[in-house]
């Protein structure tokens, strides 16, 4: 149990695997260094366009043939864009893994990137940006990340219309060739698979592909402290962010426990104070959000306009109040909650493939579940309280969308 497979191809591409005996499925991810922050100025939304464009034909297959082949294997494909990476992956029945990897070899290394298909992929990305107006919750969180992280680290993963409209197929295709160079990619697999066979196949498909990869990201200044976007919706959508420990920091696990105390379950402080005692919101919560370069706690609440000010005040008060320490009961609940979610998550091949890939991209190594459990277990009331006193949550970046702005 809890074995990690690891291998590096001749070109430097890293292969990670976590075998799971109880499942019939397998999931894999290609983490490509093509996330939103890697693109130069003027390309906001480039990664979003590419995540669609690469599926519109690859190798010997046109868009329809490729899609038919993927569907024929019954695989559930997905693509997601973060600040650092564009991830392409799939979950499927284990028996079809070999054929699926052959198809993804084409998608990553030989996407057709036809100009007429670019226009369609770009139009969908533009429509997605517009549709954010009708999804204020999602929009406020995108805006918040943009303001909080030093530019371009928090750049919108969906895109900006002005940039999308001026991007050319040729310029974006150049970027794809550079960013998708397999030597810079990480491949992760979890579930039922034969690691030797996977490595041999990937060596054959990717072993000779190499390239420069993306330029290093130069982080600029942080954005504004508060932004309000007016709209006539039913609720005011409030997002707030504050800095906390990164995955590589010594007190990372203390920070995770503190966030659990704040918003880990229904007995956590935010839910108790904002919803249970005051009835201010239906949705309220905060979670950990990490980039390699910086990490934060990201909070959200949606409430009707008359309650918006009080909601934000109560939430901020709860963040500030943490420096006064946590109780042994809160620590115990945070520990059991963190450990349970880790084990529950470990039953899903899709979420394990994602976790080991993300770990590697953040830490250059993969933490075992046992290591995480032990580190969570080792936290104490003193260690968490000490962390909170040294790093009180007093500085916030806030964004709101709704009928009225609030004071912060």
């Amino acid at each position, binding site marked *: 149990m809890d074995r990690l497979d690891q291998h590096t191809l001749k070109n430097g591409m890293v292969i990670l695997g976590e075998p799971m*005996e*109880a*499942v*019939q*499925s397998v999931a894999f991810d290609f983490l490509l260094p093509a996330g939103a922050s890697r693109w130069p100025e003027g390309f906001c939304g480039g990664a979003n366009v590419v995540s669609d464009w690469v599926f519109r034909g690859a190798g010997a297959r046109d*868009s329809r043939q490729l899609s*038919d082949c*993927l*569907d*024929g*294997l*019954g*695989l*559930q494909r997905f693509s997601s864009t973060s600040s650092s990476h564009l991830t392409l992956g799939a979950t499927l*029945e284990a028996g079809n893994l070999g054929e699926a990897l052959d198809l993804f070899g084409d998608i990553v290394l030989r996407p057709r990137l036809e100009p007429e298909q670019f226009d*369609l992929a770009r139009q*969908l990305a533009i*429509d*997605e940006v*517009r*549709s954010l*107006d*009708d*999804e*204020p*919750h999602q929009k406020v969180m995108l805006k918040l990340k943009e303001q909080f992280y030093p530019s371009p680290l928090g750049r919108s993963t969906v895109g900006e219309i002005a940039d999308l409209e001026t991007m050319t197929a040729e310029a974006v295709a150049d970027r794809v060739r550079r960013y998708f160079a397999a030597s810079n990619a990480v491949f992760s697999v979890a579930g039922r698979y034969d690691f030797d066979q996977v490595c041999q196949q990937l060596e054959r498909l990717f072993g000779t592909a190499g390239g420069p990869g993306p330029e290093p990201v130069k982080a600029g200044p942080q954005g504004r402290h508060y932004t309000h976007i007016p*709209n*006539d*919706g*039913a*609720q005011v*959508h409030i997002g707030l962010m504050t800095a906390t420990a990164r995955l590589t920091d010594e007190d990372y696990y203390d920070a995770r426990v503190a966030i659990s105390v704040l918003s*880990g*379950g*229904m*007995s*956590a402080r935010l839910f*108790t104070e904002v*919803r*249970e005692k005051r*009835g*201010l*919101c*239906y949705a309220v919560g905060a979670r950990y959000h990490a980039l390699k370069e910086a990490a934060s706690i990201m909070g959200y609440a*949606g*409430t009707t306009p008359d309650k918006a000010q009080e909601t934000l005040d109560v939430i901020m008060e709860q963040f500030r109040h943490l420096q006064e320490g946590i109780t042994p*009961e809160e620590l115990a*609940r945070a520990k*059991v*909650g963190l*450990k*349970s*979610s880790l*084990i*529950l998550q*470990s*039953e*899903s*091949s*899709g979420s394990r493939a994602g976790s080991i890939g993300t770990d590697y991209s953040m830490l250059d190594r993969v933490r075992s579940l046992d290591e995480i459990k032990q580190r969570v277990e080792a936290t104490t009331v003193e260690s968490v309280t000490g962390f909170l006193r040294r790093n009180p949550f007093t500085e916030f970046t806030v964004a709101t969308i709704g009928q009225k702005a609030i004071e912060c």
Partner: protein
Amino acid sequence: MQFCQKILQNGLQLIGEVNPSAKSAAVGFFVRTGSRDETPEVSGVSHFLEHMLFKGTERLSALEVNAAFDNTGAQFNAFTSEENTVYYAAVLPEYLAEVTRLWIELMRPALRDEDFDLEKNVIKEEIAMYKDQPSFDVMERCRGLHFAGHPCGNSVLGTEAGIDALSSGQMRDYFGRRYAPNNMVVAWAGHFDWDQVCSQVLEGCAGWSSQLTSRTLGHFAGSHRQQRLDRPTLTCEHICLMHEGLPAQDPRRFAAMLLATIVGDDVGSRYYWELVDRAVAETASMQFGAMDGTGVFYSYFQCSPASAAQVRRTVGAVFDGLARSGVTNEELTKAKNKTLSALVIKNELPMGRLVDLGFNWIYLRQYHSVADDVTAIKAVTVEDVNDLIRQLSPGVFTEFAMGPGLTA
């Protein structure tokens, strides 16, 4: 995998599927009640009652309930639909007894006035939250229009005014009639000891008295009316179509599910190729919703207002094509592969398994293993699907559309 079942003398039904290789276990209380079982005076009471179950018992306060759940590290929640209210938790096996005991206790809630009054605020915030999600709002309105005059058109959330007018006495009365043991199923999946959970339920629930419960059944083909709402604050056009489907009890439901996949899956479907691939609509999907004694297919489209007419024409052509020539063997094979792998992957998690297990019992009083469902899906033929198209005429539908209006 071992299936177990038992019925108590008061009619409470217990079912379980034991999987000793799972790392977690899931428990669910499936109550056969929802908005379709409400009269207009108590619209929204099923969903409000679901919230109130978390508010505690004669012995436990709301805050103590939350702490009790979090002490087990459970991932737990509840949801209310038109016809079911489901309470569930996924936990590590060593906490299953504790979380089962807690749910048993909560099924006999105190329903205190002060909790009722405070929670009204939260319910009204939830109503406001969904108003800011037009994709949800348009479906809800379309369902009301489609099922005009049939109880399946009743809103789950109710309206703000209706919730204001609701009394705790009305809720207690509804609770007494609907939360009878003979109107409930308790289910477990994953790693657990059947004898142990059975004796817990016997001890906790044998004293509950059964009631005469009923539900107005009856198939409903739909009103086939068309309505639109201009809302200048919207950016996109949101269109929902509903047409006649099959009841959850109908053995042809697998053919209906495959038909929805062929027409409206996220990728590779007819909607996808005609609308999304060509960037005419950003979203186009069809799903099959089987219900108690009736059923619907619902389609949802999101596009720019300028494309709305083209979307309607294209969807008309898709339906004409289905009526004229049916589906092809290749389409059916792809849909089966996708459906089968999604089924297997979902059921690898005890929590995913619990949902299928519970609903099969609620609707059919039958146990179907995952292998049984796989066999049933594989057995569907092109003729089965085409017979359904002839019978259900997808081209005859109810439509609700929302958008910024012509002046935008």
